[in-house]
């Protein structure tokens, strides 16, 4: 295939240095380089101030509505419970109680596992949707229209969407009735409501868009000609997907997974409504404890829930270098 004898001695190199030189003349950096040391330091100071001004509102918000409540929870978890609430007397008994409770740890593990399953399912079902929207639909107008349609469920309240599953999936619900009418089943299926399965399906429907959206935005950024370039360089459709599309959508997958994981891990409302008392989660445990005014215990339970979430996020983040890839 190759035949070195016919080639000339001189490598066919482009004159890289000269081109770089030519480029630098027109380079934007030239302007910055012309600035003196002092002016540059001044500019840096001004830039830092501007940055601070822009971040201040967000920082204040996070301080009052995220950091302070979390600190409060941690604090209360070390306080003593009383009949009517708690008093600020240091104690470890809330944690002792927690460590003795098998139910709690079982539930924490269940919720963790359940969240991972929902993350996996929403990725499996959501990715094709995002891919279709971002890559297959070429008209921007059509793309936006479809995306808004996909967002339509978000126009109703989350609780209403959860409640709406009951007439859909109940014993006398639409699905059971339809299946019976079609003669596919003779008895109504009980698994459709008030079961683990029902909770999984409902959560999937409630949260899948948090997976679709970030993947969609990552895929939409992919330069289509880079897909053509991959084909051109010898990759078939599958390899193009594996080598070019998938790696570039990884930040979206990771962010979507974090959304879905966090949201489902702390879930209690859907579990209550769709699970109907047969299913519980860490969320429902915390809620029960709060309902019976056991704030310090609820706080201790919540602390481990948060730790489990942080662990999950940490693991998910290892799949992508967001700082570089985004």
């Amino acid at each position, binding site marked *: *295939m*190759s*035949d*070195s004898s*016919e*080639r*000339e001695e*001189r*490598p*066919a*190199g*482009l*004159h*890289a*240095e*000269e*081109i*770089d030189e*030519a*480029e630098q*003349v*027109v*380079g934007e950096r030239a302007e910055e380089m012309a600035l003196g040391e002092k002016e540059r330091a001044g500019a840096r100071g001004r830039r830092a101030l501007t940055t601070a001004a822009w971040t201040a509102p967000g920082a204040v918000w996070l301080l009052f509505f995220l950091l302070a409540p979390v600190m409060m929870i941690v604090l209360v978890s070390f306080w003593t419970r009383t009949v009517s609430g708690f008093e600020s007397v240091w104690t470890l008994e809330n944690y002792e109680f927690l460590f003795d409770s098998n139910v709690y740890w079982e539930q924490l593990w269940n919720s963790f596992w359940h969240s991972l399953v929902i993350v996996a399912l929403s990725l499996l079902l959501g990715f094709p949707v995002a891919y279709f929207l971002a890559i297959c639909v070429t008209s921007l107008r059509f793309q936006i229209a479809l995306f808004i349609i996909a967002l339509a469920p978000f126009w109703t309240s989350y609780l209403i969407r959860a409640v709406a599953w009951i007439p859909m999936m109940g014993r006398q619900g639409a699905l059971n009735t339809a299946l019976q009418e079609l003669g596919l089943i003779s008895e109504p299926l009980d698994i459709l409501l008030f079961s683990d399965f029902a909770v999984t399906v409902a959560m999937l429907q409630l949260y899948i868009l948090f997976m679709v959206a970030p993947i969609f935005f990552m895929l939409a950024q992919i*330069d289509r*000609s*880079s897909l*053509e*370039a*991959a*084909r*051109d*360089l*010898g*990759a*078939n459709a599958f*390899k193009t997907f594996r*080598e*070019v599309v998938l*790696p*570039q959508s*990884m930040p979206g997958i990771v962010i979507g997974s974090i959304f879905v994981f966090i949201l489902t891990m702390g879930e209690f409302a859907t579990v209550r409504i769709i699970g109907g008392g047969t299913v519980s989660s860490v969320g429902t445990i915390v809620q029960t404890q709060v309902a019976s005014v056991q704030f310090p215990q609820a706080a201790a339970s919540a602390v481990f829930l948060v730790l489990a979430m942080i662990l999950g996020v940490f693991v998910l983040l290892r799949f992508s270098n967001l700082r*570089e*890839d985004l």
Partner: protein
Amino acid sequence: MPDEQTLTQREGASTAPSPAAAGTGLELKSLTKRFGEDVLAVDDVNLHIAHGEYVVLLGPSGCGKTTTLRMIGGHEEPTSGDILLDGQSLLGLTPDKRPTTTVFQHFALFPHRTVRENVEFGPKMHGISRAERREKAMSALDMVGLRALADRRPSALSGGQQQRVALARVLVMEPKALLLDEPLGDLDRLLRLRMRVELRALQRQLGLMFIHVTHDQEEALSVGDRIVVMHDGRIEQVADPFTISNLPANVQVASFMGDNNIFEGTVTATEGDRVSIDGGDAELRALVPGADAAVGQPAVVSVRAAAVQVGAQDASANGPNQLLGEIEVIEYLGDLVKLHLAAGGRRLVAKVSGDRYPEFQGKEGESVRLSWKEEDVRLLRA
């Protein structure tokens, strides 16, 4: 040297462009592409390109040049016609199965891979071992002078460097034909001027078939062995740069190439090789060996801007190939001065040497005498 092995061509490579030997090179046969019912993007294009030849497809946007290139690369399927490479039809082959590679306008580098991984991509897809593809990639990077930047991400490179990565990435594939889609379109002017010389030198060194699409006349003239001027999906003229520039075949080519003064009129007399044309307010006489113009027939002629002689308004200009014109705008372009003139109702351009700028400076609005030689008047196909 490793890069010699990497980049040596398969067949007919180091030989100079040879005349169309039967069955070798690239052959476009009645190539046609329709988009929907109404849009005829490429209309019955026939072209042969030899191995080792640098061919430029030139035309305004929407003329079908990019669609033609995409059909060769396999990114569009022709509606009808055939594409043969060394006698083998490429139709029905997906881009990954074709021995062609493309340099895309916006480089189309993989942003999530390093420079080296970008260049390694092709060999990797063809199942070449890690060690071998690394060696190939590094020698291709040597060739474009980017070895030192092999571990950077494309986003950390300048436009010119990205362009060179894109080149290395296709050269490592040892394609039979290299397709370049507006390869210099994203670069600054200064860099563009440099890169086109480098492209030309690279093509000469590799002896590889380059098919280059551009809308830039100057770029086309500077790199191509042959230029294919396209308009409305059809080929208007195929010729070497000199011919395209000096002997445009028809009105489309003459007007697209720019700096041609086009006159429409009627043939009033033929006398040997001389054809006289009445262009309304201008009388033209062309020296056309073997012209078969008949008296009374409509004719279109062109006169290159550089062939127009500009003199002082001394005598009245009433002979053939003479006009009085008023200078409207003077463009100083360094090596030359471009005069935009109004003569009667028509607009003309003349180019004179840059040395004469002082003579014309500040004379916008003045009248001058324009003249040209009979042999500079080209009879065009309408």
